[in-house]
């Protein structure tokens, strides 16, 4: 039986590795669909890699979050960095879920216009960025330093909304999710 610390390291490496490849592939997708790179045959390649690695990273993220909570020293959320890690990882998961469902339900039509392609790629990059920031915060928490320390990110400051605002945000989020899902179902090419 491995310790939560080791399991957290393993799952975190999977998440960071998968999201890094995904982010890089989304960057290529963006360049390809904006015709900055003119390689038609690369489009399906990076499309597949970006979304497959995104799905893999997404599947590993809950394990990383849960093992991170159980392996953190002390009881519960006893550091602002841990709270910010939680927010960042959930934000990244939100972006990733949005991207994944869009690609799944709309299939190739996410690349139909430059607007949808840009939204898909930027959102995928945002998911990747959020996850890398989460990993960076982990480095700051454990070792007191991280590669992204040059940005002087305010990891020690927590922006915590009142419970009511968070509750309303949750309700709106679920509403948007259902609405988006239904609209996609109505227009979906998957029967």
């Amino acid at each position, binding site marked *: 039986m491995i310790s939560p610390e080791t399991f957290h390291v393993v799952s975190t490496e999977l998440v960071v590795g998968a999201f890094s490849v995904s982010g890089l592939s989304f960057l290529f997708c963006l360049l390809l669909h904006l015709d900055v790179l003119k390689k038609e045959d690369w489009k399906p390649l990076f499309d597949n890699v970006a979304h497959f690695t995104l799905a893999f990273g997404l599947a590993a993220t809950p394990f990383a979050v849960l093992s991170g909570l159980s392996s953190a020293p*002390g009881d*519960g*959320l*006893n*550091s*602002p960095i841990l*709270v910010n890690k*939680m*927010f960042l990882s*959930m*934000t990244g*998961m*939100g*972006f990733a*879920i*949005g*991207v994944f*469902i*869009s690609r799944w339900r*709309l299939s190739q*039509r*996410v690349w*139909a*216009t430059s*607007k*949808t392609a840009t*939204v*898909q790629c930027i*959102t995928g990059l945002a998911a990747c960025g959020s996850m890398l920031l989460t990993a960076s915060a982990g480095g700051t928490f454990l070792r*007191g*330093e991280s590669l992204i320390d040059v940005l002087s990110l305010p990891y020690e400051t*927590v922006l*915590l*909304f*009142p*419970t009511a605002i*968070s*509750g309303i*945000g*949750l309700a*709106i*989020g*679920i*509403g*948007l*999710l*259902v*609405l*988006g*899902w239904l*609209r*996609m179902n*109505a*227009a979906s*090419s998957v*029967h």
Partner: protein
Amino acid sequence: MNFNQRVYTVLFLSILLIGSAYGAAEPGGNGDATRDMQCGGACHGDAALNETSLATLTLSSPSTVYAGIPTTLTLTATNLSLSSTGVVGFFLLTDTTGHSDTPQDAGWEILSDSNGGSANYVEQTLSSGQAETSVSWVVRSSNEGFTPFYAAIHHGGSSKPFFAVTSTGYDVEAKEIPENLPRLAADFIPQSTRILDVPTVLTLQTEFTESVQVQWKVEGGAVMSAQVNTSGDNMWSATLPAALQPATLQWRAVLQGEGPDQTTPWFTLTAEEAGWEIEEFAVYLQAFSLLFLIAGAVLALQSRLTPREVSSKYDQTDLLPLSLDADPAIESVTEGLSEESETAPLPAGGLPNGWNEDQWKWYGHDYLAGKYGGGQE
């Protein structure tokens, strides 16, 4: 990949490899911890990059050390020449093999270090021009006998890491403890941290002790006495005043009993801010709110931007060719269908017996072809 691209790639990778040797250094220090000497040689990247420090290291201890009783080992470093950051790290070691060489590996317990922790490697940040400093460790041996102690130093300067270790061991003999010597309990672990703004009650467990005095001091201040109460047989409590800001305080106990009076080492107590707290329910709620809000927003946006495709599983027009006229095969099939669909001419006597019009429409040709009794009944 053409020749120029290959050259650029090799150059780029070479720069990365060269940069890694210096980029791996940790000029800001590595933090107090229990570390082998190997770390002092290798924590700044390649150990071969280390220059020899010119610092002079001297270890000292009380003249008499008993097994099981805490004692102080002091390291004095002189002739220091540090980097601009002034960060310097000191090791307390029990051999110089580079691994398994900490006091703990030799059966010595570090109860306190001068930074308020309990590590064999401690760092200090010295002011510019400061060429001398000292660090101390409160240690306790579990066994009698001689133990050689070594000290090592690690610091920066002139854009290079510097390292040095004492060449000969400083022997410390842990003697058998006299029977009636007043002393702290064998399993006593000193408190190392306390919270700001709250007076600290130290609890001491002793053996062969009839009275206790507790003294404390802050850096550069006079030695003060704390009020001590007994709470039972060989159990004592002393109250130290509250700290108003993060700082260290040192305290020691003077123990009196049947045997000769004993004074403990100075133990370091660090004042810290109270632990950070937050309402966890609000955090989890906001985290899930972020997840659903962002995922929902992305889905809603994409479903709105994506052009709608009117499609039906019953619509198979895409399977047909663009123009029926253009396809001769389709034309011949439709012609054939047109001929066969014509109703056969009725015989002179009208419908055969037992036939109705609908049957004749579909099977009349077969009747005339003789498939139903040679064409005549």
